[in-house]
């Protein structure tokens, strides 16, 4: 299967890492990560609940991607989230430009997964 080839496993692992590091690091340095949330999201929920709920979603996406099973959905979600982070924090593009590259990995994996599913 396309999604279980070694290159794809490497890409899935790299993408999953991008979604595992933030929620884990947020346990030790939550203020840095809450800072990335756009202003309009502050106040919807208590900030730490917002942060760690988002973290749980990131972990779920990472584990789903690592599983290799029907990864079109989590890869698409990953791409959308990464591009949204860049869009809402464009003033930090000097730091966040790598998220665009990671999003392209997610898009590529999503397309590969869709192709694999169509081939059966």
């Amino acid at each position, binding site marked *: 299967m396309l999604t279980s080839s070694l290159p794809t496993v490497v890409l899935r692992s790299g993408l999953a890492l991008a979604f595992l590091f933030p929620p884990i690091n947020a346990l030790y340095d939550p*203020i840095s990560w809450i*800072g*990335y949330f756009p*202003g309009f999201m502050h106040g919807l929920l208590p900030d730490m609940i917002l942060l760690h709920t988002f973290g749980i979603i990131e972990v779920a996406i990472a584990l789903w991607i690592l599983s290799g099973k029907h990864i079109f959905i989590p890869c698409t979600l990953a791409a959308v989230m990464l591009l949204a982070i860049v869009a809402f924090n*464009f003033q930090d593009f000097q730091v966040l430009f790598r998220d665009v590259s990671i999003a392209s990995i997610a898009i590529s994996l999503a397309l590969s997964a869709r192709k694999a599913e169509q081939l059966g």
Partner: protein
Amino acid sequence: MNKTTLLAILGVVIFAGGLYVLSSGSKAAPTQNPPSPIVTDSTSSTPVPGTGKTHTINYTGSGFSPASLAIAMGDTVLFVKGAGSRDMWIAGGHHPTHESLDGTTRSEHCAAGYSGPKPFDECALGTQYSYTFEKSGAWTFHNHYSDDDRGIINVQ
């Protein structure tokens, strides 16, 4: 060169161009807290080097006010957290590394036992923070807790 490759290259070029336009546009029209035109503190009409004046920047629910400030070397800026605003942690440079005026990063200058020059970094949440600018230049700052809220201080 096949059609797919050509489309891919075209897509990258268009995307890069869009990023360039957005990047240029963001300098002219910041997203949430557009800096007001550079103003001097109301207590003096012309900055005088070495006078050590204190200028106040208030942090409210709308961000920093003023978001742009022109001061003289040796002046102090006092950041004050207002009622109803988000938690405040003033820091210079980019989020979250806070490269300071002296080149140190948050992990260095906020570390316990740091003995270097006082950084332009509050290093913790607070309600008031002051910093005396001894170097000329344009120094950006932001709220570490809400990176959307930013400003700039021009030290002359």
